[in-house]
């Protein structure tokens, strides 16, 4: 009687889904957060298989429960909303801003809540610098106002009305964004599974346009996530009941001699 372990695998799956849903719900207001999804598969572990009962087809068949196959990040774009801060940027469409950590590591994010630091560089709340198409941080001259056009050109506007183009933003796309490694703060690192970053201008080859003064919301759908979480809770209780029933059956088998 394998039901005890089968029930346990079901409880683990329910718990895993609850963890993922809780993480998604906690980030429902995190800028540019990408929801995660747990993927489950019917499990037939060969080492747990025993010579089972014959099926209609005359072949042994007995499942061994459920397994957590993968956790995917869902990269569909969230809603873009006005923020009225001139250093807030959003990508209206696919792609990622390219940022650099203080350690010099390249990360990719859609979180465009940047600030201008004391040296005039655009930096986000994680301390990551926004990079231009040459891979350099953006330097805003002292006293100038930041202007970012839809095509990613960055301009410094001076009090006397003069404008100077100081940089061009690059937008990264990946062949398999789901393979990116989440690094916290809505930032991701490229991996072998995601493929290398393909850099290009905003608006070209399917990349989104840059919107200044806008931010992208989390792509978590609150109602849908709540439903998923409730179902996971139910799945957990059903499987707890399986374990309990298996235990009762074991007790009955144990008390066979009268």
């Amino acid at each position, binding site marked *: 009687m394998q039901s005890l372990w089968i029930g346990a695998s079901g409880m683990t799956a329910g718990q895993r*889904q609850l963890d993922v849903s809780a993480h998604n719900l906690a980030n429902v207001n995190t800028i540019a957060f990408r929801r995660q999804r747990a993927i489950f598969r*019917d499990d037939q572990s060969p080492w747990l298989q025993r010579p089972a009962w014959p*099926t*209609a087809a005359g072949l042994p068949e007995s499942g061994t*429960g459920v397994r957590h196959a993968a956790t995917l990040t869902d990269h569909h774009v969230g809603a873009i909303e006005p923020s009225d801060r001139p250093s807030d940027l959003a990508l209206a469409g*696919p792609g990622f801003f390219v940022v650099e950590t203080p350690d010099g590591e390249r990360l990719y994010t859609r979180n465009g809540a940047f600030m201008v630091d004391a040296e005039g560089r655009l930096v986000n709340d994680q301390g990551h610098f926004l990079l231009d198409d040459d891979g350099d941080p953006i330097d805003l001259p002292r006293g100038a106002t930041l202007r970012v056009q839809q095509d990613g050109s960055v301009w410094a506007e001076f009090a006397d009305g003069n404008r100077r183009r100081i940089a061009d933003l690059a937008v990264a796309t990946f062949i398999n964004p789901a393979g990116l490694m989440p690094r916290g703060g809505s930032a991701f690192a490229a991996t072998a599974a995601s*493929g290398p970053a393909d850099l290009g201008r905003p608006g070209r080859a399917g990349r989104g346009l840059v919107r200044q003064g806008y931010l992208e919301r989390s792509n978590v759908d609150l109602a849908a996530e709540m439903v998923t979480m409730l179902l*996971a809770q*139910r799945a957990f209780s059903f499987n707890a009941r399986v374990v309990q029933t298996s235990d009762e059956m074991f007790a009955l088998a144990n008390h066979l001699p009268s």
Partner: protein
Amino acid sequence: MLRGMYVAASGMLSAAARHEVNSVNLANLQTPGYKARQVALGTFFEYMMRANAAHGGSPVGPVASGPAVAASVADMRQGSLQQTQRPLDLAVQGPGFFMIQTGDGVAYTRAGDLRLNDDGLLVTAEGYPVWTDAGFIRLPHDRVTVTPQGAVIVDGNTVARIRLVRFAEPERLTRADGGYFLANAWSGAPQDDDESLIVQGMLETANVETDAAMVDMLHALRVYEASQQALRVQDALLGLAANDLARF
């Protein structure tokens, strides 16, 4: 008398088997495209005789000697569709199956949570390539449209049509690890399915009926309990016969 013990024991064993199937179904409540398992009980001896005849033995008359699992089949009814909005989540409406290539060969599945791998190849969540009429396909990105007829449209161009197949008796397909199905002599060979529709941005949920599974689980538990009681009574009777009958 002894046969009574075996009848009671086979009652316990078959109730345990039913419980096991309900456990597997309930464990897979969150598995996309999962098809519930069903067991059919038959009479133990009749099953043995059938097996015997199949191996060259000659059949004898029927003897009732308790239940045994005669068959395990898949419940192939349509599961409900859940909206996900992911462009590579595909649900099949109708009897069709996706055709995929695992390490061991071609397999069939209703789980349409597809993705692109690092080469841009269209694969299942577990990384198995998906068959289309143009073989395996590479896509430049996942912003694709999939029509109900399975045509994959990328940047305005139709690149391939996802293959759907159907079986004469899908209930009798062999199950493989990961919830994939394999064709066998009983299921029949796969045939192209032009009637089933693909719904993009949706996933088919497990078709397990939780209330029925819970009721069946309770029923199996009580049958197990009753069979255990019957076994204890048989044991007590045997004890009387062995120890007390000949006592003067």
